[in-house]
Every structure is written in C-alpha cells, then in structure tokens.
C-alpha cells in the first residue's frame, strides 16, 4: 500500500473475478486509486488490465468481487451509470462518428438543444471552451474523418471530460502518438491531475510509467501482484513484477547490433514510384521508391496511418498499386498474386494478426501452414501427418504455449499467437521478409525472442522490411531508418545518424527532405 494517502480512495476494486468461456481474465484482482493521482496499471498483454478497467467503466459485470467509486458500492453498474458518476474510459479503438464534426461528436449523447433543435453554436462554444481549459487543442468545426489519429484521441478525451469525468481511464493511449504528441498528452494529464481529477493509465511501457505516474499497480495472469509508489521503484523491479521472473530489460539487452558483414549490393526488393490508393484515400502511398538488400533491415518509422499499412499490403500483393513497380530479385511482381509472391520468396508478418495473420478458430497446427497450405497437400487432401509433424517442430522451436497444437489459435495469449505467425513466416524459404508491427501486443519475453529471430534472419542474408509504430523497435533493429509521413518517405538515414530526437520532427511532418 503506498503511504501518504490522505483521503479515502476514489476507486476501490477488490477480489474481482471475470471469466470468458474457459479463460479467467481476472481473478482476485484489486485496485485502489486516490484523488489527484496518475495511476499506471501495468502488466504484460493478456494480464487482464483492460478487462479490469472495463469492469470499472461498466462495460463488463464481474463474476465476483466489489467495485466502489467515491465510497459507493457500484458493483455491476452500466456504462451509463458509470458516466453519470464521472467515470469515463478512452479506448484503444476510438468510438467516434467520422462524418460528424468534432463538436457534434463531443456533444453526442448530451446534446444542447434549443426547442427541438440541436444548438450547434452552443455545442461548438462548449467544446472550444473545454479545449482551452484542458489544453487539448482541436478545431471544433472539422469533421472527425479529417483528423489525424492524435487529434482523434484528443477528441475522445474531450468527449469523456465533457461528460463530466472525474476518473479518466486511458487504454494504451500512446500507441498511436509521435514523441512530441506524447509529451503534449502528458501535459494535459498533469493538468487534469493538478485540478483534482484521477487518471488511470493502462500501459505496458515502463519508460512511460516512470515518467508520468505517481503510483503503479502491476497485474500478472489476471491477478494484482504489486502496488508501488513510482518514486520508490526502478524499471527493473516493475519488469520483474510483470513477468514474474528476472528479465533483461528491453533498454539494456535489446539494443541495435550491426550485422557481422554489410549487405550485398544487388537488392532483393526494389520499389519504384509506388502509388497506392486504399481505404478511400487516392494516394495513401504517394510515390515511394526504395531498395532493400540482402543482409539488411530497412526500418520504417512513423505515426500509424501514414501509408505504412498500404505500402506493405501492396508489396505483399493484397492491394494492387495504382502505378509504380515492385521488383523482387530482378523480376517484376507488381501484378502477381499473393500466393505467387509467397512462392517467389516473400514472407509477411501482417500487422493485424486477428484480422489477417491467423484464423482464430483454426487450430495452432492449421495456422502454422496458413498461406503455405498448398505445400502440405497429398493429392487433393491435406497431409495431416506432415501438418502435425510441422506443428510439433514449430511449437518446440518457438516455445509456443500451451503446447497442444490442436487448440484453436483463439485460446492462446497474444504473444503466443504472434509466435505462430513468426514461426510460420520464418519457415518459408524466403528472400524478403515484410515485418509489420512484429511485436505488437506481445509480452516482454516474446519481444526479445522475435527480435532475435529477425536479427538472425538478417545475418543469414535475408532482406527485411520492418514497419513499426514503436520508435524503440525500429531503433533496436533497423540498419537503415526511413520515416513515413503522409504517404511519402520524409527521410531515409543510416542507423548511426538516427535517434528519437532526430526522427521526431520528421514523424510529425515538421521536417522533411527529398528521399
């Protein structure tokens, strides 16, 4: 229990239990947060942080345990009741109406009216006023569809404050922000805290925890395992608490290691003047040219939504480009089909394993041949024996748990799911690996393992194109760093010149140079 707590806690959760099917997401989870503090809720992915917060915000009803807010027992309340009591949650995936303006979105659900009509002026004035007082800069009259991800997040926070939130819950808010935007967000949160509000921040990034929080609750495997004052602890201690054993901290072990020998001259992948239209944007990728050579990792940094997804999908063959060329080992593959590209030597770790990378209802064994199912045929039938043999080999090699390859992918944790994807794409006979957000939502131990596999592949002479929203990941892996902004490469530089300070301005579009 952290000392120097003066008043009674604002939020007190005790003995919380919550199961989904046969999986227990929370068991004996507890949390205490006081007024005027920024509280970090940390834990590996699948530790039950989001579930606990959804119980607090009324989205889920706990199977057991009690929830008290401002001293009142509110166990099992609804989201409407939570909002009315001043508890608001900003989700990882925004819940905004894209066709409405910022003001309309903020007012939605508590619209000011004049007679029977919506009082748009008042809605706009309210939002502008709140934007000024909170420091969340937004243009109230713009439609949400025209906003960047960072701006949309500010609107979400504004909306929550507008509904009178005194307890603000933020779920992994920095995943979609550039470094300067993160600093801006910290400023806003500190302002809210100093005004007496309570902020609960779900995160798995220790640097953020140390920087912004006052107190920390650590969760592991659904339980609350530690409760610490930030001033009294170290990142190493938090990490040990999260994982339950001694771990090499990302900052210490996971540093950039240059390849033993330089890349060969002849490129594996050449991309020339590529233009891709997708998701309603005619030039999501707006004329990009680059090469990736054997034995090097080209890392693309940048805030998400600047064309990285479309670029990778075009190279993988999932979207046909509007113009430009994609050349693999000297052969033009711009028009060829996904499977043909795979057979020609492209491996692809997709950014969204739940949507693309895995069939959640298929077994681990079946998922371990996804995309290569045509290589596991015996006549028309699938060669179940080889699929099973392959599965037990990969499960062992990548330490996938639980080890039963007959389980559906859905039953595994995020980290183990991602290991399936990585194992499968590494077992191809590939020349080029497209690694999009390869460690997203993966726990600390698995991150290390996946990073090591990528470096090994590079040292074995593979060409790797890495896309990551985590600047640290790009800096830990890439031999050359590009920053993508508004569909273009804002800059490409050797690893030696790159750092967070150098890349930051390119990521926000404040700076760009012809690449």
């Amino acid at each position, binding site marked *: *229990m952290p*000392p120097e707590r003066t008043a009674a806690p604002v939020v007190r959760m005790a003995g919380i239990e919550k199961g989904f099917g*046969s*999986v*227990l*997401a929370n068991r*004996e989870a*507890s949390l205490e947060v006081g007024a005027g503090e920024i509280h970090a809720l940390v834990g590996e992915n*699948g530790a*039950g942080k989001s579930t606990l917060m959804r119980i607090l915000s009324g989205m889920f009803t706990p*199977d057991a345990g009690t929830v008290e807010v401002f001293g009142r027992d509110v166990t099992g309340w609804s989201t409407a009741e939570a909002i009315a009591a001043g508890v608001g949650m900003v989700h990882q995936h925004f819940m905004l109406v894209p066709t409405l303006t910022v003001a309309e979105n903020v007012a939605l659900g508590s619209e000011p009216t004049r007679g029977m009509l919506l009082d748009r002026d008042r809605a706009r004035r309210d939002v502008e006023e709140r934007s000024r007082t909170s420091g969340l800069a937004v243009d109230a009259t713009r439609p949400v569809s025209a906003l960047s991800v960072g701006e949309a997040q500010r609107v979400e926070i504004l909306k929550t404050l507008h509904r009178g939130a005194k307890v603000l819950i933020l779920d992994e808010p920095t995943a979609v922000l550039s470094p300067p935007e993160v600093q801006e967000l910290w400023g806003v949160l500190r302002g809210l805290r100093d005004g007496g509000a309570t902020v609960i921040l779900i995160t798995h990034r220790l640097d953020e925890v140390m920087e912004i929080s006052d107190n920390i609750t650590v969760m*592991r*495997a*659904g*339980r*609350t*395992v*530690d*409760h*610490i*004052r930030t001033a*009294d*602890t170290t990142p190493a201690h938090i990490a040990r*608490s999260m*994982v339950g*054993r001694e771990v090499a901290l990302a900052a210490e072990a996971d540093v950039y290691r240059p390849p033993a020998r330089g890349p060969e001259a002849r490129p594996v992948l050449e991309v020339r003047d590529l233009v891709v239209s997708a998701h309603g944007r005619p030039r999501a990728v707006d004329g990009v040219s680059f090469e990736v050579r054997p034995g090097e990792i080209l890392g693309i940094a940048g805030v998400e939504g600047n064309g990285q997804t479309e670029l990778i999908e075009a190279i*993988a063959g*999932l979207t046909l480009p509007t113009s430009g060329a994609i050349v693999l080992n000297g052969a033009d593959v711009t028009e060829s*089909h*996904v*499977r043909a590209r*795979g057979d020609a030597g492209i491996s*692809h770790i*997709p950014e969204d394993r739940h*949507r*693309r990378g*895995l*069939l*959640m209802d*298929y077994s681990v064994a*079946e998922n371990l041949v*996804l*995309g290569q*199912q*045509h290589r*596991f*045929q015996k006549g*028309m*039938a*699938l060669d*179940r024996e080889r699929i099973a043999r392959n599965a037990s080999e990969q499960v062992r090699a990548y330490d996938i*748990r*639980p080890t*039963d390859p*007959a*389980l559906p992918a859905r*039953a*595994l*944790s995020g980290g*183990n799911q991602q290991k399936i994807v990585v194992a499968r794409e590494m077992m191809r006979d590939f020349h080029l690996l497209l690694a999009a957000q390869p460690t997203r939502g993966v726990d600390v131990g698995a991150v290390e393992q996946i990073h090591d596999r990528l470096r090994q592949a590079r040292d074995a002479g593979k060409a790797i194109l890495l896309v990551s929203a985590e600047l640290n990941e790009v800096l830990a892996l890439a031999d050359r760093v590009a920053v993508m902004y508004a569909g273009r490469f804002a800059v490409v530089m050797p690893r030696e010149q790159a750092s967070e300070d150098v890349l930051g301005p390119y990521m926000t579009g404040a700076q760009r140079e012809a690449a």
Partner: protein
Amino acid sequence: MSTAVQQTPPAAPETTGGTAASALRGRLEEALLPPIVAILAAMVVGDLLILSFGQSPGAVYRLLLEGTWGNAYGFGQVLYKTTTLTLTGLAVALALRAGLFNIGAEGQLAAGGFMAALLGLLLPAGTPWLLAVPLCLVAAALGGGVVGAVPGALKARFGAHEVIVTIMLNFIVLALLNWLVAAHLHVPETLHTPDIRAGGVARLGGIFTGSAANWVILVALAAAGAVWFYLFRTRRGYDLRAVGLQPDAAEYAGVRVGGVWMRAMAVSGALAGLGGVNFVLGYKHYYEDGFSGGSGFLGIAVALVGRNDPVGVVFAALFFATLSQGGLAINAVVPKQMVEVLQGVVILAVAIAVPEVRRLLRTRARRA
C-alpha cells in the same frame, strides 16, 4: 516500498480443466445442446397449441410418432423426405461455411430435377441402368450447379449480394420451368412431363413397399460423407472455411476469395440439384411443376439446426422430415399447420435463444 500481494507462477490466462477432454466436451455441447433445447422449446409451444385445440398433448404426440416412426409406410415416407432435405440442407450448409447465404436452393432443386427428367426423356428406352442413372445424376448436379454458380459469379465479379440474387433467381427459374413444362413438355390436362424412359431408381422394397422411399437415399448419405471430407480434409475445404471465417485472412493466405465464392455456390447448387433426383428418378419418374414444395427453403432450417455440419445436417433432415410427415398423421385432430409452427419455433430457438441459454447454463455452473 513495494509489497508483493500474491505469488503466482508465470502463466498465460489459465484454462479450466484438461485441454483434450474439455475441448471434446465443449464441442459436443456446442453440437448437441442447441438442437435439444430448441426441440424442448418447440414441445412446450406444441403442448400449448394442442391444449388450445382442446386435445391432449400426449395423445397427439403419440399419434405423430405412430404415423412416422411407428409403421413401415410412415417411416418410409420420413426417409423419402429426409433424402431431399439432406441434400438441400447440405447445399445451404456448404455455402454458409464459405460465408454465403444460399436462399436459392428451391430453384436449384427444381432445376436439378428438371434436368434429370429431361435427360431421362431423351435417353433411349433401353439404356442400361448403370449408365443412365449416373448420367441423370450428373445432369441434375449440372442443372442445380449452373443456377447456383450464377449468384457466385455475380458476387465475385460485381459484388452483387448473393441473398438478393438467389431470391430473384428462384422466381426466374421456377417461372421458366413452369413455362417449359406447361408449353412444351406436359402430358395433357396435367402439369407434369411424360414418364422418363431411362434412369429410374428403384424404391426400397420389403417392409417399405408402398412408400416413396427409394435408393436415392444412398446418394444423399454419400453426399454428406463427401461434403464432410471436402470441408474438413481437403485443401480446398481449408480455403473455403477460411473464406467463411475471415475473408481477410484467407486473402492473406493466397486464397482467391472470388474463386471460392463461385466454387462454393456452384457446388451448393449442385447438391440442391441432386435433391431433385429423389422425386424424379426415385418416386414419380417424371418432372412435375412445383414438386420442390418448399424443400429448398426448409434446407435453410436443416442447415441451421444441423449447425452446418454434414452429420448434423443428416439428423436435422430426419427431424424435419418426421415433423413434416407427422403433420399429416395428426391432421385429423389438430390442423397440420401446427407442425409448421413447431418448425418455426425450432428454427427461432436455434437461431436466437440458444446461445443465450448456453451462456446462462455456463455461468450457473461456475457459480454453483
């Protein structure tokens, strides 16, 4: 200062129970619970209906069972109806596995029956059985398959929604067949064609003599086996189910989603088309306008209650065939429309209520 509240071994979210045993139990629960609950719900509604007609539920259910499973003729009729419903149920289930809702089984069934009859009329009278029957089966599958492939192709090429297209095609196909028979092929004063000259399939003999049950039931059972093997053992089945579950993941895996749609709809139509053989080759030995009589639509219910599983479809077909035949048996004491109400309740219960019921049972079990 930090205080460790709890010491736990590092583990992913824990699953309750042993994996293999609980997986099997879960699968059985998944497969059996919904239909059983649905049938129980239907029985309660049935009781109330029967009481409202002033009859005793026990007596009416006994009558229903005696008229279906209680005597050879009735059971033969049940088997006959099961045959058609199995094939239309398989057709709908296979399409649903690919994520497509085939409402067109009715038209595909009629087209299949018509093509089988047409070939049976064209073949010379002396064509050996061993040649004529397979040819007629192929004709039926082709007839239904072509009608099914059209919505598949339109969806793959233009994104036309298969529900709309299959509904429209039902009208077009049924009207076209009606015109062909009425204007060109009918026996005067009737709406059916002359007897086919080749390709007839024998009725089941022995105790079933007199009922419509015939050897086409083996085609239906073989089709169920083949669909099971296709879906769960072949590479194309792997691709097809992937498209149905997560089209984006299938696309990532190099599956041509449009191609799977076309193939699935063609095979679905072919299965429904084969259902037409039951009436044409096995029962009447001619094509009659309107013979499908809703069996294509009932296939949707069969697939739903059978949980899109070929084995489940066979049992669901047997159940719906029993209800349908039973309706005739109880007609003397209550309106036979009552069984249609019961069918509706079963479908509704499976579609809506059952997942809720199951969730309720689960939470109860854990709290107890």
